């Protein structure tokens, strides 16, 4: 036996009470972890957006296309450092509900752009440039559908058809890539624009949007005006905006929700804190006599303080850690269905670390008053009158 055994035995002396407290702590920490993960995922897009990145869209709205010729014309604008074009494929696998995020891109340029987010091996880099009919699929998408490199997979588009009239494309997976940073989402498929453009039955030489990087943030305004000015009064007018502006507008809507969520979580926490703290005070008071006996045996006040604190911390961990497990399961369950809203939803290690730290704090707060009471307890009073 050691102090830990003693602490554990004390905690589980009244099983039902201990379990009820653990369940309430579990719920509090599960909610905390899920909401913290959502908040992180919502903010990820905003944080990732770098201020020197601009997006050129059709002025009408983003579902309207732009001509591919804009690619070279925008590239020539003074202050544009790097440029890519994207065409939305609108794909699904087997059934329409199996949404597949797929784009047609210029392979070489796209890999250059995403080099900071994804890891491309040299062979895959070469293969994607060389083999026009091949597609690259991110690690998470591979895993999601159980695909392997070399697989021929039929991907249907709810926008595009092939020249032969079919909506289903047969793609060969020639390679995969993994995330370099945790925020980078690898649930994505890319194909060569040249091949896509030749094969589709309509919309020839049109793209969905342009993404570019300016030489410096200071050049943003000038570049924006130059691009939108250049295409003013053309059949395809443009609207150029910073990536950050998009994310910001999106995040602003979420800001209010986040505040409400924080209030609710805070209220739940404080309530549970008070209930558990009160229960701990009662629990220790019931043991007054036993604490007196321990002191009589020679247990010091400090040691008894540590034992009570140890008990409340153990309680918080025994409730909180399974709470994180529950959060993990919940997130795994909703991740796929929320893919398009919060692509990077995940229980990150630092959220886990923060939660564990919070559990210890929770344990200390709930145990402090009874622990101090126990430490200061007068032996003669505690033993009472025989």
């Amino acid at each position, binding site marked *: *036996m*050691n*102090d830990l*055994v*003693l602490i554990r*035995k*004390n905690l*589980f*002396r009244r099983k039902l009470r201990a379990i009820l407290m653990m369940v309430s702590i579990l719920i509090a920490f599960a909610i905390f972890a899920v909401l913290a993960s959502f908040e992180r995922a919502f903010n990820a897009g905003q944080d990732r957006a770098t201020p020197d990145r601009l997006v050129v869209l059709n002025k009408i709205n983003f579902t309207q296309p732009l001509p591919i010729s804009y690619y070279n014309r925008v590239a020539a604008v003074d202050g544009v450092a790097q440029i890519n074009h994207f065409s939305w494929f609108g794909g699904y696998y087997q059934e329409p509900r199996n949404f597949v995020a797929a784009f047609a891109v210029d392979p070489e340029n796209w890999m250059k752009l995403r080099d900071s987010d994804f890891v491309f091996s040299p062979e895959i880099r070469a293969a994607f440039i060389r083999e026009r009919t091949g597609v690259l699929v991110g690690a998470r998408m591979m895993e999601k559908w159980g695909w392997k490199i070399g697989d021929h997979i039929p991907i249907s588009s709810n926008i595009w058809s092939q020249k032969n009239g079919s909506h289903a494309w047969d793609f060969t997976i020639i390679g995969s890539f993994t995330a370099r940073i945790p925020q980078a989402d690898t649930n994505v498929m890319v194909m060569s624009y040249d091949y896509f453009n030749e094969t589709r039955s309509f919309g020839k030489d049109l793209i969905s949007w342009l993404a570019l990087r300016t030489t410096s943030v200071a050049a943003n305004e000038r570049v924006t005006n130059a691009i939108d000015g250049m295409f003013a009064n053309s059949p395809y007018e443009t609207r150029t905006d910073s990536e950050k502006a998009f994310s910001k507008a999106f995040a602003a809507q979420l800001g209010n929700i986040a505040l409400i969520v924080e209030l609710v979580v805070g209220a739940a926490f404080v309530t549970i804190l008070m209930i558990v703290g009160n229960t701990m005070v009662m629990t220790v008071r019931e043991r007054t*006599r*036993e604490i007196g*006996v*321990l*002191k*009589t*045996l*020679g*247990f*010091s*006040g*400090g040691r008894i303080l540590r034992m009570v604190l140890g008990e409340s911390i153990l309680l918080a961990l025994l409730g909180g850690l399974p709470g994180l497990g529950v959060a993990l399961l919940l997130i795994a369950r909703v991740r796929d269905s929320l893919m398009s809203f919060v692509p990077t939803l995940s229980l990150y290690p630092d959220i886990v670390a923060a939660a564990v730290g919070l559990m210890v704090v929770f344990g200390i707060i709930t145990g402090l008053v009874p622990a101090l009471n126990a430490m200061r307890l007068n*032996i*003669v009073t505690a*033993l009472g*009158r*025989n």
Partner: protein
Amino acid sequence: MSSPNSPMVGIVDLCKRYTKGKETITIFNGLNLAIPRGDFVAMMGPSGSGKTTLLNLLGGIDRSDTGEIEVASERLDRLSESELSRWRASHIGFIFQFYNLMPMLTAAQNVELPLLLTRLGRKERRQRVETALGVVGLADRVKHYPKEMSGGQQQRVAIARAIVSDPALLLCDEPTGDLDRDTADEILSILQVLNRDLGKTIVMVTHDPAAARYAKRSLHLDKGNFIEKELAA
């Protein structure tokens, strides 16, 4: 510090008062007492005469107001709370009327408690626990919880807990007060063995003259002072 030949208990001119609100109750006013090593003293006296208070003072869980109190070669009136705590762990074994065992611990774990305060390893601790439970005749109840044992058995576990760290002085406050005659006799016989064969000094508070006969002598406490009566062993 005194020599090992000094008495187990030496009390000189001890005063102890309790203040309750404006009222002050004087329990002892100039008490003197000497108990030699190896003695077995039965302490008797009317309720409220201060028997428990004296035991608490001897065991260092209560403090005197003035006077000297030396127990097991240590001047208790000069020790701090934490020093007293450490001193108790190695020198004193307490036995209470209502056993005071931890309900969630087995007999063996209850007996092991005082050893958590020592540097002994797990194996050595287990050996000591077995020995102590053997002495009180409960070697076969190691895994039993207090609620699964009779009062007499629980008191025997409490005795094992009191002797496991091999203290020199046992302080018993009405150890048989809650037990029937036969069971009380068993407990008292164990205490007698501890005194006679293991050399423990014992101070036992009791209301029961039959119990007092197990001791070497008895002291009668009345109004804060002693009237000694030698008993034929």
